[in-house]
């Protein structure tokens, strides 16, 4: 069965160490409220798949159902083709990493990491060997006898990761594991997690609300909103080709310029007429019809600022306006420009020290290639 939400740039390589997880029509309802509403997802073996969405989107509940801590009200969850609804959580064989680490406070690091092995009745020598290996992987060999209260947040999370992979599960589930860490540490840990996953080859299902994190880590992102998956694809695909305005806004800054479709030269190419009469060219993923309302989507970093207009070019859109504000963000400069028609547009330029900087009040022309923008129908 082909997953209709995949795209051509997915490259997750199949490995025999990971397992496939398939969600079909998975639903969880509390009375009338559908927290998870008919979720379909095909996670391939060895794939790093993120469930990304705002709070309340149902991503953690979905993960809890995969783990077996929440009952499925409708639908099926399969592990390598086998329905796991009847399997209790301790028999599913998944590695788990929680947001608050859940490091057993009364056991030291070694015993924490050894826990899944002892619970499975592994012989002592194997346990010692595996635990040492796991600790080496997370670079905590020197902390084997420490207790959680002696460790920093980042170290505790590394213990949690070591504990989740020590028995070499084919799937690891992570619920916002880096939420409590500061930005720099989070980025460092993301790199470590990605490294470990590449080395061990297991499937990872990762819940997060941080879109940068999802994009950095994932082979594929499933974006959830109000209990449904609204789009799934590689980070690049969902970033550059969002299916609707919500997704466009959620994954980073976006300019959403409203208008009406004036003309459709073919079902996927058209012209958008703005309120002030300006015409902009754009492509669309969904079939276009003249007369319907649509939104032009263009990322701030894809717009160029110039002092003056240049010659008309069918591949380039131009809008004139005036700089309202200029913000210095360190590595980027963010402009808020008010177009001649009164629309606010955000532009981001790299702070490369070469390009001219336009002060507030300057008249400018905004330019972008037609191919960089998209018409969104929803």
């Amino acid at each position, binding site marked *: 069965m082909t997953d209709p939400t995949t795209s051509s740039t997915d490259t997750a390589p199949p490995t025999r160490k990971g397992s496939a997880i398939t969600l079909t029509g998975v639903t969880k309802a509390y009375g009338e409220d559908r927290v998870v509403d008919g979720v379909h997802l095909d996670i391939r073996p060895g794939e790093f798949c993120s469930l990304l969405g705002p709070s309340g989107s149902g991503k953690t509940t979905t993960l809890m159902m995969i*783990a*077996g*801590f929440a009952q499925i009200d409708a639908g099926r969850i399969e592990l390598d083709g086998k329905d796991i609804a009847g399997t*209790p*959580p*301790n*028999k*599913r*064989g*998944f*590695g*788990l990493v*929680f947001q*608050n680490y*859940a490091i*057993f*406070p*009364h*056991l030291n690091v070694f015993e924490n990491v050894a*826990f*899944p092995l*002892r*619970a*499975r009745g592994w012989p002592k020598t194997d346990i010692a060997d595996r635990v040492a290996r796991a600790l080496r992987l997370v670079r905590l060999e020197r902390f084997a006898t420490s207790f959680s209260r002696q460790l920093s947040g980042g170290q505790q999370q590394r213990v949690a990761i070591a*504990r*989740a992979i020590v*028995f070499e599960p084919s799937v690891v589930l992570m619920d916002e594991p880096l939420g409590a860490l500061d930005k720099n540490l989070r980025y460092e840990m993301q790199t470590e997690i990605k490294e470990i996953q590449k080395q061990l080859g297991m499937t990872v299902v990762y819940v997060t609300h941080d879109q940068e994190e999802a994009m950095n880590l994932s082979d594929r992102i499933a974006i959830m909103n109000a209990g449904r998956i609204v789009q799934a694809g590689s980070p690049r695909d969902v970033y550059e080709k969002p299916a609707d305005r919500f997704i466009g806004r959620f994954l980073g800054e976006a300019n959403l310029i409203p208008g009406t479709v004036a003309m459709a030269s073919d079902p996927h190419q058209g012209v958008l007429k703005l309120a002030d009469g300006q015409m902009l060219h754009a492509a669309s993923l969904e079939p276009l019809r003249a007369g319907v309302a649509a939104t032009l989507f263009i990322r701030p970093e894809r717009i160029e600022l110039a002092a003056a207009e240049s010659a008309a070019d069918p591949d380039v859109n131009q809008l004139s306006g005036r700089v309202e504000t200029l913000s210095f963000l360190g590595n980027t400069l963010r402009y808020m420009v008010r177009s001649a028609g009164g629309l606010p547009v955000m532009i981001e330029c790299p702070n490369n020290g070469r390009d001219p900087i336009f002060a507030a009040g300057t008249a400018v022309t905004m330019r972008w290639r037609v191919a960089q923008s998209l018409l969104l129908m929803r």
Partner: protein
Amino acid sequence: MNRLRHDPTAIFLLPALLMLAVAFLIPLAGFFVQVLLVEQAPGTLLPAIHQVVASKATLTAVVTTNWIATLVTLFVLLAGYPIAYYLTQANSISASLVIFSIVVPYFTSIIVRTYSWMVLLGRTGIINTVLQALGLTDAPLPLLYNKTAVVIGMAYVLLPYMILTLYAAMKAIDMTYVRAARGLGAGGFYTFRRVYFPMSLPGVLSGSLIVFILATGFFITPALMGGPSDVLIAMLIERAVEINVDWSGAAILSLLLLCVTLLLYALYFRVIDVRRLVGAGR
């Protein structure tokens, strides 16, 4: 006065402290001073202490008291642990019902509670009547006036202390740990043994200590429900005052009991942070 600088509301403790001093501390100190120092002929205090402490009656009473207190503590722990756990997991209606049946007896006098057990356990009591009516036994069973009855009666009175202490400790256990243990492959019993029970241990220790401390000082229940050989320290003190009119003996025994209790309470202090219990600081 240091406390006043940190927390001016500590001044509200003054009336209670004053009452405690006037109604309890001062009379107690006065009693000990009067009996053991003033009325005692000089040089006779230490031999008197030795005579009381080393006497067979005292030693037997100490052994009996400790033995019964231990049995009561164990019994109450085994009975109370599952109930306390149930309270942490149950929905509010069931939990309220259970808490109601635990706390309401508190409002009845201990004598009434003790007598109610005697009604149940006596020769013509409810249990014996039912057993004989069902033909399970032809003569009434001796369920009263022995150590078993004393343990049952004391356990009934002390159970709420254990349950509420355990409940407070168990409520503080984050169920994410249990979830983590199960998710990582541990079965129900293994999770209990290696994760939940060890985390409840501070509650178990403090609950056991409180029950033990209270049990060593018990008087009414063992006096009413025990046999002639079941003599606890508190009963010895009562005997010394009421029957022998041996004030110095009573004072020495009381001091002995007080010292043991204070020692145990010091231990309790180590196990549990009392300030945390009353919500102060932190």
